[in-house]
């Protein structure tokens, strides 16, 4: 009888270890799938559109309005995780080149972008005044380095990418 009890106890212990293993494995697998679906969902639910691009009179700046068309807000701390990529023809060199613009850069020798402080940003800001909520619009200023200028009467291209990877692009004319 003692042997029987001992045998059953060992079997129960084995069952417990097996169940515990399965529980841990399921938890890890569930976390994996949750992470994967959350990344995909965030990307699917985020969208933006560039409403308009205006070239400044001195052709060294762009004024851009971008609307959050998705269902995911962009936290203001994540603005630096957005990408602004600008393609244009430079007047002194005549070269058409693509540049990645730095956020809030103080270095005037490189391309930079920042929020336009002349406007309430984002607009309207009824909820989460600092964050870019769905349907709100951000006003951006893109500045060229001090030595650069848009060549007259050429076409440029602007692409804005959200931290999740969704993007939108728009062509613009530099005017005459």
């Amino acid at each position, binding site marked *: 009888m003692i042997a029987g009890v001992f045998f059953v106890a060992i079997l129960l212990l084995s069952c417990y270890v097996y169940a515990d293993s399965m529980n841990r494995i399921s938890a890890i697998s569930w976390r994996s799938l949750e992470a994967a679906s959350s990344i995909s969902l965030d990307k699917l639910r985020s969208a933006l559109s560039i409403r308009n691009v205006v070239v400044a009179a001195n052709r060294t700046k762009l004024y851009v309005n971008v609307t959050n068309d998705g269902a995911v807000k962009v936290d203001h701390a994540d603005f630096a995780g957005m990408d602004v990529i600008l393609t244009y023809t430079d007047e002194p060199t005549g070269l058409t080149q693509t540049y990645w613009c730095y956020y809030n850069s103080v270095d005037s020798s490189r391309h930079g972008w920042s929020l336009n402080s002349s406007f309430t940003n984002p607009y309207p800001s009824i909820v989460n005044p600092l964050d870019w909520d769905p349907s709100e619009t951000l006003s951006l200023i893109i500045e060229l380095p001090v030595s650069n200028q848009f060549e007259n009467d050429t076409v440029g291209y602007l692409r804005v990418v959200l931290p999740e*990877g969704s993007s939108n692009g728009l062509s613009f004319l530099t005017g005459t």
Partner: protein
Amino acid sequence: MIVTVIAASIFSAAALQQLYAFQNAFKDVSSRNEEMFSSSITIIAETKTPSASSIIIWVKNTGRTSFRLQDATANATFWDLFMIFPNETYRRFNYVSACSDDCWSAQILNDRGTIGLWEEGETLEISVHTASIPAGSYEVRLALPNGVTCDDKFSLG
């Protein structure tokens, strides 16, 4: 009775050992899957430099996993960069931190968190240095050590 107890002990010890081995193997595989599932990278744009000596590729970390370009232990880079050129030439480029020809180098442009760690939302600028950049269609594929890849087709004039 003693024989039964000994037999039960031997059987249980063997079974538990196998169970633990199975558990560890499965945990290892699950952890790798977790890292892979939470990794995502996206190529957002490509261009070439005015001097036409390198192709610039911007890649964004759109996942939850952070990556280090240089493996601290091995002091090497286990990232792979492949490209198909317009003449259908398939090439693999090696990472060289001070690259000048036939290799690639990279820098994190908006390094907000831990310096040198490519974290969520950060963009990596990859410069592929090559002797000639003919006009036409290209394909690029970047593969990370954990098996996550991203690819893109683009054209250069």
